[in-house]
């Protein structure tokens, strides 16, 4: 049987408060320890409650901030747009939250208070629309195309799109639930019908798939680190910061998809006016030129999409 002597340990702990040679003192020691513990507990609770009160829900914050949920692929462009917006509207602060569109849509459905939602595909915007959460209909503000990226060192020796189906290539795509992942599979499907690619192109590329990433920037990261031989991302994901690490293979226009980016103000908006202003900036010549700088394809004129 195990003979551990926790009583020894116990007594040592309370040596701070009692005289070990004088046993009647021990009870006072415990009493003192207990009340000290309770005091600490009260103090901690007090500060905890005080701190918790400062974390107000987004909708209770003052009207000087605008909360924008944007698809991960919009990261660089929207960060710049937000800077311009803050300069144009002094005192207004833009809070940006980037993630996969599907995740943002889920957060909005679950009650996140958001002023503007910009999605990387129309499906998730429609889903939000169906829940009756949009303040007005969504408008497409930009398009994006896909490219294949490979690490600069090109460990998989990929020279053309056909090489992606070579056995042993480590391919990384966004997961199917992510817009970029769905588009990637669509492109591969279209390529298998194109001349110069076999009909089993899609299958053999998917056989090379080593990971389905949960957003498009993760695909970029895995390729940039040289862990994957190839990946598929939006053209807008190629930025000055990562261009030096990557080689880009273009996808022929007839096989490529034109991803549409809808934007809409939400009913839960705490600041509808600012939301409107932000959307105006996105559609303005200045906003469109910023999007163009980040490799987005522009929209001739704002087109109506999802109700």
């Amino acid at each position: 049987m195990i003979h551990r002597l926790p009583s020894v340990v116990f007594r040592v702990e309370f040596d701070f408060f009692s005289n070990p040679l004088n046993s009647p003192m021990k009870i006072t020691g415990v009493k003192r320890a207990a009340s000290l513990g309770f005091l600490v507990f009260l103090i901690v609770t007090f500060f905890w409650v005080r701190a918790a009160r400062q974390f107000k829900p987004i909708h209770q914050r003052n009207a000087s901030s605008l909360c924008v949920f944007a698809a991960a692929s919009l990261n660089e462009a929207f960060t710049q747009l937000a800077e311009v917006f803050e300069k144009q509207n002094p005192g207004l602060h833009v809070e940006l939250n980037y993630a996969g569109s599907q995740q943002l849509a889920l957060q909005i459905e679950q009650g996140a208070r958001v002023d503007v939602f910009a999605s990387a595909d129309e499906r998730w915007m429609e889903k939000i629309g169906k829940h009756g959460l949009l303040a007005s209909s969504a408008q497409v503000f930009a398009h994006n195309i896909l490219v294949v990226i490979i690490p600069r060192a090109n460990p998989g020796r990929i020279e053309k799109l056909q090489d992606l189906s070579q056995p042993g290539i480590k391919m990384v795509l966004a997961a199917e639930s992510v817009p970029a992942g769905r588009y990637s599979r669509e492109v591969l499907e279209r390529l298998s019908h194109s001349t110069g690619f076999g009909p089993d192109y899609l299958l053999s590329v998917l056989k090379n798939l080593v990971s389905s990433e949960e957003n498009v920037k993760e695909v970029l990261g895995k390729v940039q680190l040289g862990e994957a031989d190839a990946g598929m991302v939006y053209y807008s994901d190629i930025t000055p910061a990562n261009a030096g690490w990557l080689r880009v293979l273009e996808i022929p226009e007839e096989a490529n998809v034109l991803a549409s980016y809808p934007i809409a103000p939400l009913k839960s908006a705490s600041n509808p006016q600012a939301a409107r202003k932000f959307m105006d900036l996105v559609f303005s010549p200045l906003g469109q030129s910023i999007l163009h700088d980040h490799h987005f394809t522009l929209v001739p004129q704002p087109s109506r999409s999802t109700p």
Partner: protein
Amino acid sequence: MSQTTDAFALFRPGRKGMGIWRVAATFALVLLLVLLGLPLLSLLLQVAPRDLWTHLRAPVVMSALRLSLITSVISAGAVIVLGLPVALLLAARRFPGRRVLEVVINLPMVLPPTVAGLGLLLAFGRSGLLGHALSLAGISIPFTTLAVVLAQTFVAAPFFINTARAGFESIEPRYLQAAATLRASPVYAFFHVILPLSLHSLVAGAAMSWARALGEFGATITFAGNMPGRTQTMPLAVYIALQTDVQSAVALSVILLAVSFGLLFVLRTFVVNPGK
């Protein structure tokens, strides 16, 4: 065992000054139960048992569950084999750099798992410090089941090492002195004195690190990626399901919860505290 009871007798009701202690303890207990229990209860209330069965039979779920169980058991095994000597070293010896070693071993508990994953990628990835040499030899770790095991072992190790060390340190030195007087060899002393006396801590530590490995998410998705059947463990499957279908994510969570609860319960009842 009677000594244990005596020690805590100080905290028995009826003792002077216990009133305030009892109020504080009850308050804390209720708060903690709400914080820990309510989310679990909410998950359970979300799904009908029949849905659970349907989800459990889905091939993706079965393969994720199988992968999770296999990898976490292997990881826990690796943690025990590698952690036991380290724990013994830390408990028994004072040497220069001991504090540093302690901190390094405990670091995975503080690091965000994603950082752990990135670190693993930069070390064992194709262009990583060690990974580059490995890749020249034709070995590539990222995106494999081995990567899952490495990620889990990395995050789970401190849980075992710390508990095992505390177990070793709580052994009465006079037992070891007695063993030495009786001319027991170190190996004999380890198996006949140290191991039986600290078994309880070792098993508790192993259970904790196994549980941590089973729940591992961040390091796995960063280092091993997400591939059903190969690197998609239950936590990853839950996360990916959450993006498309909340209901199935909840069902998967409940399955994971049930498996973890069952295994931990069995361990606690029959191995850690038998007869209590």
